[in-house]
């Protein structure tokens, strides 16, 4: 620990560029094997199978959305039954308002289930990827701009317990990195 913390005070980490998606994929496998924790790959599109290479599991966003959708479903039923059956029964064309008029309540129930799920997806996504965050040390890097164009980049952060200034640099070169840039904090 002490070895890493003393020489990386103002260093955020390394940005390393790899020539192709395939190189980055194999490099990610090696970084994962080496036991790094605070690192990521930055690519212009989601690379197929990269979660596997990085040792990441399935996103659990879907579980949150299940909760959101269920809330919407129950809220819609409550809204309709409470207002139509007990609070303000609207009898139009002699159609009764009771528990058995269920089919008439399906469309709104369905729509609200989708609506609540959709908002859960949006806000759930922003929460798990921790956005919005308009400022980040990586945005100072010139090389990093390629991540949204055509670059296959890997970032290893200095706060990773395994990070050592020279050793990590050599390690990145060893696994096939081309350009390597230091990013300040």
């Amino acid at each position: 620990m002490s070895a890493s913390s003393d020489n990386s005070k103002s260093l955020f980490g390394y940005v390393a560029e790899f020539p192709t998606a395939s190189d980055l994929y194999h490099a990610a496998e090696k970084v994962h094997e080496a036991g790094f924790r605070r690192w990521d790959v930055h690519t212009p599109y989601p690379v197929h199978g990269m979660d596997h290479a990085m040792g990441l599991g399935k996103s659990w966003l879907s579980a949150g959305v299940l909760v959101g959708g269920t809330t919407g479903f129950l809220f819609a039923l409550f809204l309709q039954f409470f207002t139509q059956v007990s609070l303000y029964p609207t009898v139009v064309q002699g159609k009764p308002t009771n528990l058995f008029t269920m089919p008439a309540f399906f469309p709104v129930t369905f729509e609200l289930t989708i609506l609540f799920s959709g908002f859960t997806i949006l806000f759930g996504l922003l929460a798990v990827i921790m956005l919005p965050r308009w400022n980040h040390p990586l945005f100072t890097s010139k090389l990093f701009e390629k991540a949204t164009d055509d670059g296959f980049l890997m970032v290893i952060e200095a706060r990773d317990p395994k990070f050592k200034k020279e050793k990590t640099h050599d390690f990145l070169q060893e696994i096939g990195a081309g350009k390597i840039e230091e990013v300040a904090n």
Partner: protein
Amino acid sequence: MAGTSTADTKVHPSEAEGVAREPLVLNDRPMSWITDRICGIVENRQPFIWWVLFVPAAMLFGLLMGTLVYLVSTGVGVWGNNQPVAWGWAIVNFVFWIGIGHAGTLISAILFLTRQKWRTSVNRAAEAMTLIAVMCAGIYPGFHVGRFWMVWFLAPVPNANAIWQNFKSPLLWDVFAVSTYFLISVIFWYIGLIPDLATLRDRATKKIPKFLYGFFALGWRSGNRQWRHYEMAYLLLAALSTPLVLSVHSVVSFDFATSVVPGWHTTIFPPYFVAGAIFGGFAMVLTLMLPVRKLYGLEDLFTHKHIDNMSKIILLTGTIVGYAYIMELFISFYGANKFETDAFHLRILSGPYTWAYYCMFFCNVIAPQIFWFQWARHNLWVVFIVANFVNFGMWFERFVIIPTTLARDFLPGQWGYYSPSLTEKLMFAGTFGMFFMLFLLFIRFLPVIAMSEVKGVLPQSDPHFPDWKKLREKRRQADS
């Protein structure tokens, strides 16, 4: 599945013998070319023709605003709707516009779930078209309530008279369906835009664009730890939008189908409306994208393959619509309900609007049949003209369903003939102005093709087949 195969010697699926497919992006374009070409549209000056289109569209939009001011200040009576045709062009146009939107969601959601990779070049523009079309649609029922400032009565909150909505009314279902559709489409579109906004942010040199794109990109860093949740969010939204898009036009059709009006009271309406919506929407996507493709040099991204596929979908859905037309006639005959039989007799033989019926039938059922031929699908003029026939025909479909049915009520004493008032005509022209104006602004300020998605379907983006180029060369030599 993910990442299990890394054998570098295997043949890329798209290059395998016998199943080789046309590449999705022509001329082996690199990723930076895609970024430059798409961002260039936003960053460079617009071509002169953009202004030629924008100025009249903006003027028509001004006309729409003027008409709406006149409508609100005078009263909704200026529409000229009266008994028996209480729903005139207003509802025709509402259904027309909302139907247009459906193709966008179909492309972005259903084609995503069915792994149709060609959708990546079209989905962004189609989704933008969806949003704009739903906005145009929303104007009609919004102002049809009469006192526009009372439109909040539609929301499920106790209003001034402590009256709650009638949740058994299909019109209220429509409120929920259309507003949900709009909001979910916005979310889907925006989440799809985030990576591309980040690209524009990273390229922007001027202060204001950099700030604005940066603001809306939310600080996206395109790391895989973000992508993996992003992909899940996208998948979930696609999975939710698929039943949603089918429900929206079904609910719109319930406005008619749950009534007891002969000609409307049929169970075929929901599937028939949905097929028609997708049909009409694809025609509008082609109408918009063929000129955009030419104007901005996107031939390598939006290729003949895309046009071919979309023409086939138009052929398929057009034929489904034709089936529905004929089945409606058959059921009215077979059901032997006097009123139904009469309604359809009036519609196709003796009524005052038979011309509209045949116009619709020709445009929607006969015209797309030319797409059985490959030369027609590959001739851009033929595609463009047929797409416009379909636009025209789908408007007529709604016209045939609404005024022609209402103009011939149960009692002959109530019969009338409906023709639109000037206000209705101006408003319809105005919504076209709004539609094209907003679409042109979309082209001007936002990436018209989803760059991050197109990059993901390039052969070089697959990490499991690094030798794709060599393999392709080998296959080409073997072929020749």
